[in-house]
């Protein structure tokens, strides 16, 4: 069935950026009708390699063979014409246009030389959809369809241009677990139809699930290319990080003490003034990690914002260490001892155009020794940063380096360092490992457990069930703004998954 001659071959690709060797004589090949996963940590050179293939960068050394012939693309347009399609992490769609319009954009069928032939466009889109078994309404506007469907539109866009090779850049990063498994189904169909797929990811389990072969990049070099059947999560993690990685979090049994965070009958409204958190009550005690599991958009964001003072609850109480903080703002809550690792570190966690030092002092700047009577001592900010950079192993720059130039993992370390270094009593960690690679995830998890062991109350809100299950001492499930169940750490994925989709509450109602 499989043709052994590669449809695509990259030989000895080298790409240098000022001060960085992004790709170091990389060899890579893709067979017809195969899914080849490209695995690596952030900054390992995956995107650079694909941008070279897609004609966005030119390699300093090396050659690209397409179907055995040498090619050299100087723009994405040439790559597309040669049959290479790329689905970026951030979709390149026009929200107000329909699915069909987006798909044909740039290659519109024309009537009389100038006019868009809408019916032909629709027909051809439907043709593509039929061939590859897509279910998307061609007349729907892109802004009205789900993220998963938008991704399908992106794929169809490539197929419409007769792509034989499809590059998917971190395709599951934006998807729910259900959408991800739908995507995998589509990819398998495409594979059967003879499309070759490069699947870029840093998630081990995904690569193992979908790929035929896996190539691991580390620091710009190919670490190994293996058949997925011969690889394990452990072996891939080792190749990615360069050392053995603890995929399971090691922790002692909890030793819960007094209640540090108590939430009573909390009601919160969102920006559209709709109540998204209903009469929620729970508590987190010193020395325990409580995980809140749930699918995105079930009230987590509003709950977090209420807990850290960014949103005023309409009803109920929030008590931190015996102190009522229900109506306090962010500053009061920081002073009451609530640390916050925000779910969106670019938007809320960091000032990307500030230096690492300034970001680390984003709370501390207003107190001695960093400042006195409104006068700021920049060298003390730097001194504080030096200490934290060492303590939290932040790599990629010194106190004066801009936070925006760090890798995602190191940016998150800056946030974690800032929030932990103020020694909070309660730590609200929202999606603390989103978008991080294996090594950084291990680090953040270890830090959270250390905080727990130091007697802090840790509230973990995450969409990743694995994370919730491996870290939490107790698991609460949130569904449509209500807590629908409490589970122990040994609860199964199925059990939690059912509760997260509202199954448990209905079961409870029926019972």
């Amino acid at each position: 069935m499989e043709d052994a001659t590669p449809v695509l071959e990259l030989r000895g690709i080298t790409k240098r950026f000022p001060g960085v060797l992004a790709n170091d004589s990389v060899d890579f090949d893709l067979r017809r009708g195969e899914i080849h996963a490209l695995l690596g940590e952030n900054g390992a050179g995956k995107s650079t390699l694909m941008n070279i293939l897609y004609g966005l960068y030119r390699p300093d050394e090396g050659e690209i063979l397409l179907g055995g012939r040498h090619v050299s693309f100087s723009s994405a347009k040439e790559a597309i014409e040669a049959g290479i399609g790329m689905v970026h992490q951030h979709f390149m769609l026009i929200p107000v246009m329909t699915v069909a319009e987006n798909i044909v954009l740039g290659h519109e069928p024309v009537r009389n030389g100038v006019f868009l032939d809408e019916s032909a466009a629709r027909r051809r889109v439907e043709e593509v959809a039929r061939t590859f078994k897509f279910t998307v309404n061609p007349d729907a506007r892109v802004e009205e369809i789900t993220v998963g469907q938008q991704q399908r539109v992106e794929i169809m866009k490539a197929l419409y241009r007769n792509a034989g090779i499809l590059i998917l850049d971190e395709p599951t990063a934006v998807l729910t677990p259900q959408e991800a498994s739908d995507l995998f189904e589509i990819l398998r169909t495409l594979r059967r139809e003879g499309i070759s797929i490069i699947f870029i990811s840093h998630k081990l389990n995904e690569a193992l699930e979908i790929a035929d072969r896996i190539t691991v990049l580390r620091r710009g070099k190919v670490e190994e290319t293996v058949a997925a059947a011969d690889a394990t999560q452990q072996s891939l993690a080792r190749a990615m990080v360069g050392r053995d990685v603890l995929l399971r979090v090691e922790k002692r049994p909890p030793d819960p003490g007094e209640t540090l965070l108590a939430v009573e009958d909390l009601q919160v409204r969102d920006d559209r003034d709709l109540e998204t958190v209903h009469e929620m009550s729970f508590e987190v005690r010193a020395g325990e990690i409580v995980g809140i599991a749930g699918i995105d958009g079930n009230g987590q964001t509003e709950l977090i914002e209420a807990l850290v003072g960014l949103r005023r609850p309409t009803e109920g109480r929030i008590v931190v260490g015996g102190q009522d903080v229900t109506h306090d703002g962010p500053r009061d809550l920081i002073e009451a001892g609530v640390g916050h690792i925000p779910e969106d570190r670019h938007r809320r966690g960091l000032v990307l155009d500030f230096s690492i030092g300034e970001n680390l002092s984003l709370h501390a700047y207003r107190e001695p020794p960093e400042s006195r009577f409104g006068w700021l001592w920049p060298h003390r900010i730097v001194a504080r940063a030096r200490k934290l950079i060492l303590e939290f192993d932040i790599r990629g720059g010194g106190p004066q380096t801009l936070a925006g130039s760090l890798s995602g993992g190191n940016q998150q370390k800056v946030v974690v360092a800032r929030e932990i270094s103020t020694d909070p009593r309660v730590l609200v960690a929202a999606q603390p490992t989103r978008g991080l690679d294996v090594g950084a995830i291990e680090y953040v998890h270890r830090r959270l457990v250390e905080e727990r062991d130091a007697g802090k109350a840790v509230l973990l809100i995450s969409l990743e069930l694995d994370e919730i299950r491996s870290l939490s001492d107790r698991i609460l499930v949130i569904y449509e703004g209500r807590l629908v169940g409490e589970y122990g750490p040994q609860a199964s994925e199925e059990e939690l998954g059912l509760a997260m989709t509202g199954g448990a509450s209905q079961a409870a109602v029926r019972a």
Partner: protein
Amino acid sequence: MTEQAPQAEPPKPESPVPPDPGFAARFALWQRAGGIVTPVVTAVFAFLVAGLVVLATGHDPLQTYRAIFNGAGLNWLFPWVHGVARQTAAFNLQETGLLFIPLALTGLAVAFAFRCGLFNIGGQGQYIVGIVTGTQMGVWFASLPGPLHVAVAIVAASIAGAVWSGIAGLLRATVGAHEVISTIMLNWIAIWVGSYLIGFGGPFQDPSQPGVPVSRQIAPNAHLHVFWGNPLLQGLDIGFFIALAMIVLYWIVLRRTTLGFEVRAVGLNPDAARGAGIGVARNYFVAMAISGGFAGMAGALDILGWQFRLDVTTITTASQIAFTGIAVALLGRNTAIGTFFAAVLFAGLVNGTASRNLDPTVFPPELAGNLTRIIQGLVVLFVGADLLILYLWNLRRKVKRRRAVPTAAPVAD
């Protein structure tokens, strides 16, 4: 083998250009790295294009620029300029210095608001409020000793400017009204209230000249000391040093105070600032007020330095100063040092193309003022299009590389 790898060279593999260094990302990095190149290239481009315009009118651009340079008095800096030419140059340079004062201050006004993420285009109104207040303070309190009188007038004008822009800041902070709209509206209020106050029959009009819409003369002891040139011929006054001090103060406030830290944090990422417990609304108000303070001070220094009485036409033409101040801030990239150089540039340009300064045999002076506006407009355009400049900059490198390649290519053929 694996054990030495993680520690050996930590920064390099972790700090590559972000995963997909798109054009904007690369540009941002590059800009942060250097910063000085873009404004310089921007200015050079503006002068080049304006030079083409001069050429199109049938004049020699090089000659014209030289005449503008001399008209600004910058040839005074050359030691070989002697005699009458040197006196003229000195006089011209004093004029340029006088223009530098309000341009630097209105530039700082725009720049400070920018640093907080606000676009203060109400420099005009704040300047007018400042100049009216400064004038009246100079007229009143004639019995105060000189330095104190000057201080009272300058402080009062700055406060007036701060109050004026503070209104826009307060509206933004409380109800979210956009400062661009509110400052424009405040500009018109300032223009017409100011015109009423010193216009015919207005309360501040000079009663001895009922036929002329001017204010009374300010008291002689409120005049700023002229340290260079003839006080009767608009020599350069110590307002110049006050403006320089304000540039330094601007830097100190932004870099050395918690206030500046908050302003910068809010300007760069209001969401993160709010999350860190920084009062975003409060900073909008404070930054806006400080911004207006600079513009108000500009008005006071103009009246105390060389105008001494306020004319209605000054109020209606104040827009030029304030809008040039926007160009100053844009070209200076909202930094203290950048504002200094941009203010020098625009002061020289405006003064050098003034009809009485430009050599009429080189370029018709009645067109020259328009040349200034063209250059000013081009600067604003190019600052907005600095991506384009980076693109051209990169193209230059590519061309170099291409030139290197063909020498090798024919061998392959």
